[in-house]
């Protein structure tokens, strides 16, 4: 088949070269623009210099800008509507503050309150309003604002971490002089952990578009799926804080996009998956290991026929090798646990249970045989597919269970379906997920194991545990309370309510021009007020 146009055409060639030239010109022009607008990136020689120059642009006052990358979306800026764990950690800790606030060791100190007192053996809590605390709009916090804030918290229309505890409030009295008294229906000495609900200006309802609180940073701008910009609140009541002038929280679609953004020097810090550590330039970024403050577990549906027998659940506990999971799926980072209480709650965490079930295939097989499952059984592990770490963990577990003759399979769910089918309807056999960490109260972490709890998605039933739990909640003496909680955890462990695996390590990369990213024993809290520039 010969081409009929055998003679080369000068015109055609000319037209062709014009097209190629224009394509090249467009690409160079556009590439030039993007390089220029990105802070002279085109001429930067390495990520160190580029990110330093990017964040150094605004450092006239010394504080500078910190750009933090995240793939968690902020679902709301209203402190009483925000639900996402990561969003809460950013919004509630930096823009807002409660009467009390947690420090990095999990102790509560007065913030918008000046002082507080626990009376009547944990039935009455009284607070004195701090003088001169200002909202970001310049107004001083008045007792009326406190009244309004508690009305919001008590309205019960929407869920927030404190809703269960707040249902126990009988009344909140606020006097003109700034004395706040909270009376509970039943005594609860752990209630301080919940008086961190945001204090907001009375009758102000525009938080979604422009939140106003008393926190160290004030709101500048928010563009969903782009960035949330916060700036230093000059009239913050704590002297010398915050250090930074500006914080930009940059949103990415997923952890891959976040990693690329970090590698390019677009951001100064971000969370990091364990398998990405080697992809980050060590001479530019420090890797910080914190706890994620939620317990990863292989949740067992105690109503699934084989799992009704505690011996089977114990067998699974012996079969699951926590160390192997941490090594294979988490690059060796992680804190093994044997209870639903996070290690961060050191006073209540029962460390002796961590090795209650050392990896032991023979013992597991024996227990299965005793329970009448010598030939094993089928187990479907439901995993929310958006959590890669849980999917990876499930894969390791499938192999570990195969060793004792249990043939496990993985079924992946998207998050919405998982929440409804697995968590809500309890329509599952086993699932890998992280639970807990919303508050600093051990009662809050353990309450879901009560037989009648609405969120007891394990279908775990133990009258012994219920009794011990009630006793612990009611206990007034702090050390007595701690030991009762430890005994309650002991019961969960002996009954093997589920297979408790670990507190997943929260790894972060932070540019070595910054310091002060500290770990809180609450899930996903990011306190930007302590971060500062170092040279």
């Amino acid at each position, binding site marked *: 088949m010969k081409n009929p146009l055998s003679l080369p055409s000068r015109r055609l060639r000319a037209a062709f070269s014009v097209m190629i030239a224009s394509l090249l010109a467009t690409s160079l022009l556009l590439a030039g623009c*993007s390089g220029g607008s990105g802070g002279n990136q085109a001429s930067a020689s390495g990520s160190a210099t580029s990110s330093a120059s990017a964040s150094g642009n605004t450092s006239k006052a010394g504080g500078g800008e910190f750009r933090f990358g995240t793939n968690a979306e902020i679902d709301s800026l209203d402190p009483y509507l925000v639900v996402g764990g990561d969003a809460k950690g950013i919004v509630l800790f930096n823009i807002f503050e409660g009467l009390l606030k947690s420090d990095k060791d999990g102790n509560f100190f007065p913030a918008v309150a000046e002082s507080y007192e626990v009376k009547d053996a944990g039935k009455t809590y009284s607070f004195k309003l701090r003088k001169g605390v200002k909202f970001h709009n310049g107004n001083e916090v008045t007792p009326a604002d406190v009244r309004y804030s508690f009305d919001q918290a008590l309205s019960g229309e929407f869920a927030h971490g404190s809703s269960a505890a707040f249902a126990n409030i009988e009344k909140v009295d606020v006097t003109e002089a700034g004395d706040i008294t909270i009376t509970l229906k039943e005594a609860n000495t752990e209630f301080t952990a919940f008086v961190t609900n945001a204090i907001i200006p009375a009758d102000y309802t525009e938080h979604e578009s422009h939140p106003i609180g008393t926190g160290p940073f004030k709101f500048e701008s928010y563009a969903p799926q782009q960035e949330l910009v916060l700036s230093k609140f000059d009239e913050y009541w704590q002297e010398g804080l915050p250090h930074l002038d500006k914080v930009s929280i940059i949103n990415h679609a997923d952890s891959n996009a976040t990693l690329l953004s970090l590698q390019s020097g677009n951001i100064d810090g971000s969370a990091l998956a364990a398998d990405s550590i080697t992809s980050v330039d060590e001479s530019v970024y420090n890797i910080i290991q914190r706890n994620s403050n939620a317990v990863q577990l292989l949740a067992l549906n105690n109503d699934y026929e084989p799992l009704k027998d505690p011996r089977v659940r114990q067998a699974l506990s012996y079969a699951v090798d926590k160390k192997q999971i941490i090594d294979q799926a988490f690059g060796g980072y992680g804190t093994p646990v044997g209870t639903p209480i996070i290690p961060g709650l050191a006073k209540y965490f029962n460390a002796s249970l961590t090795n209650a079930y050392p990896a032991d295939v023979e013992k597991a097989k024996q227990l299965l045989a005793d329970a009448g499952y010598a030939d094993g059984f089928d187990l479907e592990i439901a995993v929310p597919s958006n959590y890669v770490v849980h999917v990876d963990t499930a894969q390791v577990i499938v192999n570990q269970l195969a060793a004792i003759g249990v043939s496990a399979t993985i079924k992946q769910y998207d998050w919405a379906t998982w929440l409804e089918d697995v968590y809500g309807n309890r329509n599952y056999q086993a699932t890998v997920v992280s639970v807990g960490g919303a508050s600093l109260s051990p009662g809050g972490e353990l309450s879901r194991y009560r037989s009648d709890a609405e969120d007891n998605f394990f279908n775990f039933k133990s009258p012994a545990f219920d009794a011990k739990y009630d006793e612990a909640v009611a206990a007034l003496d702090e050390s007595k309370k701690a030991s009762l909680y430890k005994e309650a955890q002991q019961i969960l462990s002996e009954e093997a309510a589920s297979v408790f695996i670990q507190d997943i390590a929260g790894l972060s990369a932070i540019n070595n021009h910054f310091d002060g990213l500290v770990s809180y024993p609450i899930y996903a809290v990011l306190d930007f007020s302590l971060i500062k520039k170092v040279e």
Partner: protein
Amino acid sequence: MRFALKRLLTALLTLLLVSLMTFAAFAILPGDPARVILGQEASVAQIDALRTSLGLDRPLPEQYVSWLGGFLSGDNGESIKYHQPINEMLTSYIPVTATLAALAIVLMALIAVPLALLAARFSGSWIDRVVSAFSTLSISIPGFFLAVLLIWVFGLGLRLFVAGRYVPLSDDLLGFLGYLFWPALAIAIPCAGMAAKYLRDSIVQQLQLDYIKTALGKGNTAGQVLRRHALKNSLIPALTMLGMIVGDVFAGSIIVESVFSVPGIGRLLVSSISYRDFPMVEVLVMYIACAVVAANTLVDIAIKLIDPRIRLR
């Protein structure tokens, strides 16, 4: 005129079907928005209260009719996820994806047309084979990988742009276009591969026909024949394909926007689906469907104008 009206009617019917199917998909799909919004801490009572306030407890036909009524009157309601009016939000999202799509189509044409002409001109030679290899390669590379590859080579390696540093249109027009150039390229390359292949085949086919020989015999130069005779006749299949490529460009933007951290409607669509933000998803799907249907309808009408012999019913 009658033909255009018929086309318009078909287009409207298609859109109605799309909206019904999206609605049905959401009705079948498990996952309750109220539960996703409230998270693991919520009580059953709170979830039920929110379902009522979102109107999710109404019968399905009623939900659909109320949504359709809102859509037709231009009121799309509030996003479940962001608690903001959808129309207001989309004013910042749509221009981003529209620009990205336009840039991608321009780049696609700039790559595909010269390659097709070159391959057709030297069909059977090594040039033709190189172009054909490029086409096959660019079609078979997964969009996600191509996007990451561009970031690695031009972002991290050559440092021509900063990965993830999207520049809003309101800040700087050139910076905005400059950043979007790269994701547009990632969308354009696979489309260009396909377009080049189609166009080249189409031109080569035309060149075999008798009228070309006649035109050459009349003393026209090869270039004149290619431009005046062959190219115009080759455009018809290529135009049909352009209509389909508009769909591909939107499909590509869904992945590419995520990788490049571009806040467009493709990325918004993905996150809205996983959040079960039904009002948002329905509106986004309708807008994308409108764009694709409009492009195809225009293409059909254009073909009719170029070649009156074609009878489209």
